[in-house]
């Protein structure tokens, strides 16, 4: 791996709700190299978005980051003041959210919103900012950028709004781009367009990307390395080809088996029984044990540590690599 861009060490983020303590991220560590594409995959409640929001320091009450370090180019983001974080957010680290409609301000034009970011981080004169905004829209493939820059978010289609958000995110040439389910609400054809765009920008800017998704197919086409999360914990990590060739964790195998193949020929999907556990009342032992076909005595009692069975690979399972039942 190249220079480390982002290193998360033993991150613990919890939410103190009326019903109890939600262990959203429970002692996770991961690293992202410069210009690397990391995919973080999990279902709802796995803690993938909370991990990203912790990096951005955007965890709000009743949530708290309770432990660990988040090193960005060697500096601990958890020790920064809010003022210092504002200078980093949107400039060195940018984030694109899933729902483009609610992450844009409906009362400002797309151009005004891009210009605000440019003004805050880079200064620039009024004229330079507008010129730059038009260039950015052109760069993300929005046709007629001179006209579109004066439009409001509701005048854009879903795919175009997502492009505008990406334009805003790359406006200050960030080193790290966090993408939180950037195409989940979009059609496949538009999804393919967005990833083609991000791939090009990644090359052009030399950005590292942190892609949060539930879709293992998207990860296969876009990422170098994958982290699988389940109920607040990392359960597996591997370089992308190895993960698909030889998944070690039963949960990863279950996820892969749940995808209907486009080529057909499968009568029944190997679904994972049961539901994601309640993060307030996690089961004893391994979090996945109640749904795991292979779980045994030890799995119900003791939590498996995240171990490295081979270079570049990590897995947290007592029965890692054993063939299915």
């Amino acid at each position, binding site marked *: 791996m190249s220079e480390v861009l982002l290193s998360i060490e033993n991150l613990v983020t919890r939410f103190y709700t009326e019903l109890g303590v939600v262990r959203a991220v429970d002692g996770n560590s991961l690293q992202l190299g410069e210009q690397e594409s990391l995919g973080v995959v999990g279902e709802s409640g796995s803690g993938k978005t909370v991990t990203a929001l912790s990096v951005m320091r955007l965890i709000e009450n009743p949530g708290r980051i309770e432990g660990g370090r988040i090193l960005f180019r060697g500096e601990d983001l958890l020790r920064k003041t809010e003022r210092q974080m504002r200078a980093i957010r949107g400039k060195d680290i940018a984030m694109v959210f899933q729902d483009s409609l609610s992450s844009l301000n409906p009362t400002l034009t797309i151009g005004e919103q891009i210009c605000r970011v440019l003004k805050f981080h880079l200064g620039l004169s009024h004229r330079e900012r507008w010129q730059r905004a038009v260039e950015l829209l052109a760069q993300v493939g929005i046709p007629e950028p001179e006209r579109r820059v004066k439009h409001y978010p509701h005048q854009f289609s879903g795919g175009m709004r997502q492009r505008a958000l990406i334009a805003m995110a790359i406006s200050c040439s960030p080193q790290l781009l966090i993408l939180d389910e950037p195409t989940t609400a979009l059609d496949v054809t538009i999804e393919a367009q967005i990833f083609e765009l991000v791939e090009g920008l990644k090359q052009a800017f030399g950005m590292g990307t942190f892609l949060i998704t539930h879709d*293992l197919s998207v990860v296969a086409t876009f990422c170098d390395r994958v982290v699988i999360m389940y109920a607040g914990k990392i359960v597996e990590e591997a370089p992308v080809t190895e993960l698909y060739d030889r998944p070690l964790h039963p949960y990863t195998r279950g996820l892969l088996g749940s*995808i209907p193949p486009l080529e*057909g020929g499968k009568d029944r999907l190997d679904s994972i029984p049961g539901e994601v556990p309640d993060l307030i009342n996690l089961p004893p032992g391994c979090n996945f044990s109640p749904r795991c076909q292979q779980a045994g005595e030890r799995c119900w009692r003791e939590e498996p540590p995240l171990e490295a069975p081979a270079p570049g690979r990590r897995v947290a399972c007592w029965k890692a690599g054993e063939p299915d039942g």
Partner: protein
Amino acid sequence: MAEVLVEVRELVKHFPAAGDWFAQLFDRRVVRAVDGVSFSILRGETLGLVGESGSGKTTTGRVVIRLLEPTAGEVLFDGQDLVHLKGKRLKVLRKRMQMIFQDPSSSLNRRKTVGQIVAEPLRIHQLATGRGLEARLAKVVEQAGLSTKFLNRYPHELSGGQRQRVGIARALAVEPEFIVCDEPVTALDVSIQAQILNLLMDLQDDLGLTYLFIAHDLSVVRHVSHRVAVMYLGKIVEIGEVDKIFSSPRHPYTRALLAAVPRPDPRAGKRQVLHGEVPSPIDPPPGCRFHPRCSAKLAGICEEEEPRLTAVGEGTQVACHLYAG
């Protein structure tokens, strides 16, 4: 050969482009959501309906069971003209068709218990009371894979997958023959998605159900359907057996759509990207509606003449000038 259960002929559904009657005084434009669609569904089979947002697939599903009144065209259900039926005779026919909705959270009344929700169609059609009702409720809830203890719970106490099972139980309550499934797994996590797809397929085998399965996820449609219809801007561009369409797609749009789907395989190579977006259904392009985005466009003809759906062998029909004559 099996009998035809649902037959749709030249179905048209237009909506006024303007919101209310006042705005409509000044704006007479119409949204051509469904613009001349014909297909039939055999008893016991699943017809998949795919297309991007704005293709008219959801509107088609709703008009087919007359949740919406068609602007023109015919829908024959088991030989009876559904469009012109009224009163009691319509109600009798309605009992034989049901719908499963995309978003299980908004399609269930949150003030009612699961038992009350599932009992509602039975009450409306006066099918069961007292003991009989209880036994019937227990049966359908179990068919949908829930235990009877859920009957006294409210939707907010359930997970997304459980809510969708309630939606399925409600649809099954009146013992329908035909179910329109409108994106039934889109809002669910991957592992839960597989559970619901398996359930729907088991129910079809056990109860001999006929499905119109609407989805934008091609892998899912491939998995559940016997035949598939591809829609683009209110028209069917290709229809035929699912294996034939997925292994040798003919229409350039079907080919582009399939090439855009990401595979859960890092070696699958780059996704082909279809550029541009679906044009507005208020003012669809003349000639073939796909021609502005088509890479195989024939000069002189595709811009002017609308292609008709023509048989091209192996039970497939395609609406494209490349295959005419």
